[in-house]
């Protein structure tokens, strides 16, 4: 019976205590929220103020009596370097000194006093002058963290003695409860500890309380928006664009392949079979720039054993005939008065013809064929090995002009891409294309289309695959944003991050359609005249 009563009393006290905890916690929260501006002042962020104008975005962060001023361009979020910033406070004007690109510091003795401080920043950067007004709110005292609210609150109930008393009461009640559970030894230790913890003076607890971190940490708020402090934005390289609605031509994606320009590339082939030999200076390595007509290799025609015998036979025959005709010619020349002139001349012509045939027969065996570059360009492929036997029509070298390349794409209509096209490579680079022509015969139920690469040759090589985005059909109205701005949300939806305040980003679900190699068209989910993150969106998306 007695035990039952004690148990009840213990429970009741605990309930009372819990109620007190709740009340104190709630009160502390109310006070914290009161008078807060639209952007929630995060407990883990240093006091800060932000101001924007048409040109600039400014964030001033108070830390250790110094105001760090982060100045960025409003539209693209790029840091503004080399600016002069004068700060007007009710106590007078101060000039900030540059610390690092886009960051300026100024001493802020006035900020030691809690409350709202009206600040006006006069920014001079290049030829632009702007006055930005903002209010820096310095919190009166740091609100205690939620888990520690109760002991401190107890201490505050009526000064230290009452706090100690409350601690003792808690310890006592806890001891009763635990002893009722017949765990005396453990109960004593626990009760002593609990009583001590509860009765610690508030100062000692305040020391234990988490101090504001040295660095402001990026964080995702419960409402899904992301707070990225300016220093973090600089590290992530966050850049934005201001969205604008415009009319864009519809684009289709086609598979394509880089091919050499037919007028600026060539093959070096052997005309006769033979043995390859290097030109003076040796074979040129891959990538060597050659001019049209440069000798790249020699082919020494090879003659088979039977052919050689035939030639030999032919040579002997010719030699024999030459000897006979020569003797006859000499004889006729000696008795010119006895024979007709016609006879002598015929013999002479016959002799000369035989001698020419003999000389040619000899040259055939000796003279190599020179392989010349048909066009100017670089050596793209080379199969030349000294002494290699090449068949007739073997491709020994392939010459390509790297600045003149074509793209062959497979499309389904001969009209796409006539007004403009671009290509996107697997690594994200893009090239500009100009329509050349469309084939008439189907290839794999698709129509081959040829485009000339007009810009973006760097690193491009024949054989590479790319996606050709060809303009087709009626134009559409929408907001064009870079592909890098669109990220996949955790649920698989395409989202973009809108820069709503200086340090606040909000995810927006969007519907996109392909536009060109570098951009997509947002057709739903994003109004114009908003700032959208184009660089660093992936990194912002990863902030939890």
């Amino acid at each position, binding site marked *: 019976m007695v035990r039952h009563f004690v148990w009840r009393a213990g429970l009741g006290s605990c309930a009372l205590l819990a109620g007190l905890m709740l009340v104190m916690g709630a009160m502390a929260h109310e006070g914290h929220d009161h008078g807060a501006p639209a952007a929630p002042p995060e407990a883990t962020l240093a006091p800060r103020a932000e101001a924007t104008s048409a040109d600039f975005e400014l964030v001033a962060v108070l830390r250790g009596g110094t105001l760090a001023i982060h100045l960025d361009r409003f539209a693209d979020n790029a840091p503004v370097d080399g600016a002069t910033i*004068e700060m007007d406070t009710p106590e007078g004007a101060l000039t900030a000194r540059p610390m690092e690109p886009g960051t300026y510091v100024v001493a802020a003795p006035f900020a030691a006093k809690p409350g709202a401080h009206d600040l006006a920043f006069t920014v001079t950067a290049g030829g632009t002058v702007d006055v930005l007004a903002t209010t820096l709110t310095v919190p009166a005292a740091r609100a205690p963290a939620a888990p520690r609210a109760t002991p401190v609150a107890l201490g505050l109930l009526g000064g230290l003695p009452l706090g100690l008393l409350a601690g003792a009461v808690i310890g006592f009640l806890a001891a009763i409860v635990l002893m009722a559970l017949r765990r005396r030894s453990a109960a004593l230790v626990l009760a002593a500890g609990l009583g001590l913890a509860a009765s610690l003076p508030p100062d000692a607890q305040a020391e234990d309380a988490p101090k504001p971190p040295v660095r402001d940490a990026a964080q995702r708020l419960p409402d899904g928006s992301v707070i990225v402090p300016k220093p973090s934005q600089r590290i992530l390289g966050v850049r934005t664009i201001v969205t604008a609605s415009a009319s864009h031509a519809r684009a289709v994606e086609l598979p394509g392949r880089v091919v050499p320009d037919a007028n600026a590339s060539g093959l070096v082939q052997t005309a006769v079979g033979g043995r390859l030999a290097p030109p003076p200076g040796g074979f040129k390595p891959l990538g060597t720039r050659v001019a049209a007509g440069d000798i790249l290799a020699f082919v020494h025609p090879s003659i088979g054993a039977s052919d050689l015998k035939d030639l030999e036979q032919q040579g002997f025959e010719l030699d024999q005939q030459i000897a006979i005709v020569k003797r006859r010619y000499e004889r006729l020349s000696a008795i010119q008065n006895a024979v007709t002139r016609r006879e002598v001349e015929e013999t002479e012509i016959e002799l000369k013809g035989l001698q020419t045939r003999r000389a040619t027969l000899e040259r055939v065996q000796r003279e190599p064929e020179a392989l010349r570059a048909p066009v100017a360009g670089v050596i793209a492929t080379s199969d030349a090995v000294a002494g290699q036997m090449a068949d007739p029509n073997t491709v020994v070298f392939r010459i390509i002009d790297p600045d003149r390349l074509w793209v062959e794409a497979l499309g389904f209509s001969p009209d796409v891409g006539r007004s403009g096209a671009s290509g996107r490579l697997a690594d994200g680079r893009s090239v500009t294309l100009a329509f050349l022509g469309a084939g008439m015969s189907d290839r794999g139920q698709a129509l081959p289309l040829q485009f000339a690469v007009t810009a973006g040759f760097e690193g491009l090589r024949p054989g590479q695959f790319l996606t050709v985005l060809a303009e087709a059909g009626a134009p559409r109205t929408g907001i064009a944003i870079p592909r890098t701005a669109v990220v996949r949300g955790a649920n698989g939806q395409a989202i973009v991050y809108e820069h709503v305040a200086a340090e606040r980003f909000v995810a927006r679900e969007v519907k996109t359609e392909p536009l060109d190699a570098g951009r997509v068209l947002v057709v739903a989910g994003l109004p114009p005249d908003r700032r959208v993150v184009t660089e660093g969106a992936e990194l912002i998306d990863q902030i939890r």
Partner: protein
Amino acid sequence: MIFRPLASALIALPLLATPLLAHEPGTGAHGGVRVDAGHYHAELVADGTPAVSLYLSDGSDKPVPADGFKANAILVVDGKAQRFPLSPAGGSRLAGTAPVAIPKGVKGVVQISAPDGATTQAKY
């Protein structure tokens, strides 16, 4: 019991509506640009001469006596910031003289200190 939340809602309704109205810069009674500055409306009148006037009124556009107020104007003129003080000049008017002529529709900020020490700023 139901009247209490209803009454609170009715009281809160203008609170929702006023910020939208108050933040819209408009033309004031003296032909200048009137903006919202804390508890007040501040109308800046510049007419192309160095003389600049600031008229103070309350939330319902009733003039507020300017006695005891102080103001500091930072106005951007021809790519340079001009700073000069404004002092009470009778009625709800604060007057000051700038080093250069101030055109109509000038951009800048006026910091206003009330007699009770409260400060606010008006952005143009």
